[in-house]
């Protein structure tokens, strides 16, 4: 039953928040609901950690892998909503731009993403994945500016088309399962599939076909190159908290779906085929995004491309497989979420103070916005994978796996792209930090305690995980890996 709690809380929360017209009240309510949400998720994770698998009915199930992603969702959404409580303090003009709408949509968004992780049925998972698109499309277009509308439309269209292919893939897998003689009712249940696969001979060709469609479909949501086109627009135009949610949670949910299919397909036709595809997409995303980082002008677009690059890294980790590869990939998912949300938060502050995200208009930050610049520097150093921050650890793990499997091409490309990305980040970072004070004097460098605290938490988390990964966290990752192997 507990599995229903987060879903209900999110749904009801969305409705409740809509009820409050007063901004402060709505904000407080939202924070309260978030608290409940996180609490319920924590309970679930705890029980999973004790019992292994939780199941309610035929359509809801949580195991190690999903609980790992639930942790991710809980942590990030907590940070984001606290940040948003400060960020949304001055509401935009026009209909549907008041905080209550914002929170309502955010809770819907959370609902869909959580249910992606909770669903035991691949079909349901698809429905919810489509749901994430629908729920977040309005958030992307929230400000109703030209850019926002355009980005929203592209996001909606591209992702819906992509997702449609994922549906086709799901159907093909279903077909394969049914043909192999599985009961049509459970033929889309991943647990059932996993335990049926060894027994029944699946039509390997159909399974491969299914995986191709699925990886293209869900890959669109992950932002694999060349299906990534929607991603920078959406990230750049959405309100900052939403950008954080998109790149730190949504992409991971899509990645979760791919992982599920990867596990199933590897069981059916061996790991070679899916892992090759993952490696191809991973390397392609890394290289292209890494190069595009060099020529960006808008800070949030830069970060969006870096998200693509990091999803590529995760995909490479999965594609390599092996203990270190999987460990690195999962760890990297979490680290990237934290680092990227920290970056987006600081981007939000820059937006508030300089009134622009054009990087050539932002100068002399180090003097005018000391705290934000510290956050930005920490986040960037972490994101480009320098010690002592956590992303160094996960990238080091993936690299080690690549080398110990003698995948020298992948490894070399990996290292090269990391250097390129480092170059891009350092270049723009130095330009923004140094230099003379800007003509448009920033509003006020002071941070709200809420922004302050979440940035602090994120930064400390990055540093801490770089020095020492808590044992409990390692155990959880081990559980997740156990599912994938």
């Amino acid at each position: 039953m507990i599995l229903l709690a987060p879903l209900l809380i999110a749904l009801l929360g969305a409705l409740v928040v809509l009820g409050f017209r007063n901004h402060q009240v709505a904000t407080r309510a939202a924070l309260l609901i978030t608290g409940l949400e996180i609490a319920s998720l924590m309970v679930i994770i705890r029980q999973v950690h004790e019992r292994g698998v939780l199941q309610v009915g035929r359509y809801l199930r949580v195991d190690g892998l999903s609980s790992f992603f639930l942790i991710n969702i809980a942590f990030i959404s907590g940070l984001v909503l606290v940040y948003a409580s400060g960020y949304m303090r001055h509401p935009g003009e026009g209909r549907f731009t008041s905080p209550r709408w914002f929170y309502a949509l955010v809770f819907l968004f959370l609902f869909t993403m959580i249910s992606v992780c909770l669903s035991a049925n691949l079909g349901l998972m698809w429905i919810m994945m489509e749901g994430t698109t629908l729920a977040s499309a309005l958030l992307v277009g929230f400000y109703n500016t030209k850019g926002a509308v355009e980005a929203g439309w592209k996001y909606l269209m591209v992702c819906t088309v992509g997702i449609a292919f994922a549906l086709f893939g799901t159907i093909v897998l279903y077909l394969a399962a049914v043909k192999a003689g599985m009961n049509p009712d459970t033929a889309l249940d991943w647990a059932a599939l996993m335990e049926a696969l060894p027994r029944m001979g699946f039509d390997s060709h159909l399974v491969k076909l299914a995986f191709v469609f699925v990886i293209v479909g869900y890959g669109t949501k992950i932002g694999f190159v060349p299906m990534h086109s929607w991603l920078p627009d959406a990230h750049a135009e959405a309100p900052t908290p939403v950008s954080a949610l998109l790149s730190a949670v949504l992409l991971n949910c899509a990645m979760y779906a791919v992982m599920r299919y990867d596990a199933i397909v590897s069981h059916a036709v061996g790991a070679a085929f899916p892992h090759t595809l993952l490696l191809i997409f991973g390397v392609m995303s890394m290289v292209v995004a890494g190069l595009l980082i060099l020529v960006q002008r808008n800070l949030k677009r830069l970060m969006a491309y870096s998200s693509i690059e990091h999803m590529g890294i995760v995909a490479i980790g999965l594609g390599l497989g092996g203990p270190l590869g999987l460990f690195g990939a999962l760890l990297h998912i979490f680290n990237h979420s934290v680092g990227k949300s920290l970056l987006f938060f600081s981007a939000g502050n820059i937006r508030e103070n300089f009134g622009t995200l054009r990087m050539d208009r932002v100068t002399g930050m180090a003097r005018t916005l000391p705290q934000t610049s510290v956050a930005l520097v920490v986040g960037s150093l972490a994101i480009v994978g320098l010690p002592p921050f956590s992303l160094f650890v996960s990238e080091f793990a993936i690299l080690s796996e690549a080398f110990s499997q003698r995948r020298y091409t992948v490894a070399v490309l990996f290292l090269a792209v990391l250097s390129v990305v480092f170059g891009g980040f350092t270049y723009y970072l130095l330009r923004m930090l140094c230099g003379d004070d800007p003509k448009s004097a920033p509003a006020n460098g002071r941070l709200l305690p809420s922004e302050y605290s979440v940035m602090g938490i994120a930064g400390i988390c990055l540093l801490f995980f770089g020095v020492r990964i808590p044992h409990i966290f390692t155990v959880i990752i081990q559980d997740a890996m156990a599912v994938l192997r």
Partner: protein
Amino acid sequence: MPLGSIDFAFCFLLATLGIFAPFVLMASQAKKIRVFAIALIVASNIIGCFVAALCFWRQSVVFVDVSRFTPFPFTLGIDRLSALFLLLICTVAVPVTIFSASYVDDHYGQRRQNWIWAFLSLFLVSMILVVTASTGFAFLIGWELMTLLSAGLVLLEGDSPEHRHNVFLYLLMMHAGAAAVIGSFLLFLPYSHTLDFASIRATSGVVPAGIRMLVFSLAFLGFGTKAGLIPLHIWLPRAHPIAPSPVSALMSGVMLKTAVYGFVRFVFDFLSGGPWWSGYVVLLVAAVTGLLGILYALAENDLKRLLAYSSVENVGIIFLGLGTSMIFLAHSAPVWAGLALAGALLHAFNHAMFKSLLFLGSGAISKATQTVDLEELGGLQSRMPVTGATMLVACCSIAGLPLFNGFVSEWVIFRSLLAGAVLIGTKAQVILPLMVGILALIGGLAAACFVKVFGVAFLGRPRSEAAEQAQEVPLAMRAGMSLLAAACIVIGVFPGLFLRPLVSLLQVFVPGAGVPPETLSIAHIIPITAAIVLGVTIAVAFVKRRERVVRTWACGQPGLTSRMQYTATVFSKPIRFVFSSVYRPNRKIDRLPSDQAYFPVSVTYRSVRTTSYEKAIYRPIAEIVLSAANQLRRMQTGNIQVYLLYIFLTLVLLLAFLRFQQ
């Protein structure tokens, strides 16, 4: 792990520098507490020297294992090599800290001071981490931190656009180098399943030749970038001069040596020699580096840039020794290999001493005169006697004059080069002895270069008001410089003290390197020589004579002014003329007014070097990358239909792939 007393001292060193001192220095504004913290840094570094010396003597391996906490194995151990470099770091750190104690405080505002001190202390820790790490993970963490912190320190000096550009270049090249280093570590992975140095060492035997070659090449690239081998050096003359002087002292004197450490660790410890050709490659690159480095240094008039280029030259000399040693190893002549390695390591040590002394001196000059442009200086010797004396010692040492430490290491390298003749029937038989000529040329040019430095900056008449008004620097700075000068002289006069332990160290890395008797000859001949020279000098100095100060004669010309002295530019002119093929200078003379060629109001002369590695190598690469990026950017057209097309095409391609796959 029993926490022995040495281990404890070592941990104390790390804790003080890494945690306590930065924290206190960041937190407190109170003068007393600062002084205490700084004193603590000095003290812990002195302790570090003792720890290093102890570990050095009785091969006692300090071992600190914190792998229980860290995601990957993280252990620190001090074997002899690490001990040597730990000694180097701490020895330089002490005077530099003392110097900064007064330098930093009257150069920067309160907030900057805090940052600088915190970073300085952390910077020291990161370097100690590098040389004492005994797992790849620990090494890499130290390596990256070292770069970051030094860059931070450079940024604290100022953030003008070109400053920023130099820092960017520095960071970028360092990161590329670090990538190469990471690669060369991880290449061992398939064979030794952990990056623990011990296991790498153990399994390096089974690594196939191809991989060994790759490891060597990557290590050479990576560490060569950090060490500043030409053509990977371009960051060095840009980054070192713009740092605060004590920091440049640490960067040039110590940080470059960590690269030497890494290279020795890889080539001699892990690969025990590398492929047969590697020695020759290193030798060649080193020779080019040394020669070009000193030539570029000669052409510079900005003292700190000049010093940076001379660092390039000295790195060249160090790698010359290393290359020689590798060749001897490849031809299985361990005794001479040992000698050459000893020479290289000793030169690394000596260079740390005199180069940091020189940078501190430049700091003192800039404090006294607000400039380090040689053309603005002159006559400082009589105004700042202590600084002058220490700088003179440093110049003699770096010029490789006998009785100073630079000569000892160069002598050892000369000696081993000469010994190349014993490799009958190999290329080395001639190549190595011929290298003596190259090294001699480098030495001669270095002497010329530092005659210029000392002569122009400290002797003759002051060339500017600022130099005229220069005052001697405060006690702390003088003390710091004097310590280093003393070190230079001691090593120079009693080489045995350092050569013998060094040679004994090499048993570990070069199996069968017995104590070469040759090392002893210099050890006993130098003190006698010193005795004679000093004896005679003092004797004749005490001969009674009448002295009188009159105006400079100068063939009787009246009205002599400082403008009539030889300038730094014209001093190096003959050499620049001879080697003009190296500089390819672009000269330009403007006469104003241009119509009267014979009675010009003003004549300006510019001569700029046109040979540039940026133009030749780096800019093309950057342009390729950027153009690729712009191509991709164009593919991101913004038209949704194109985006959809991409998706469909991907799908079709994958389906085709699937079709033809089976």
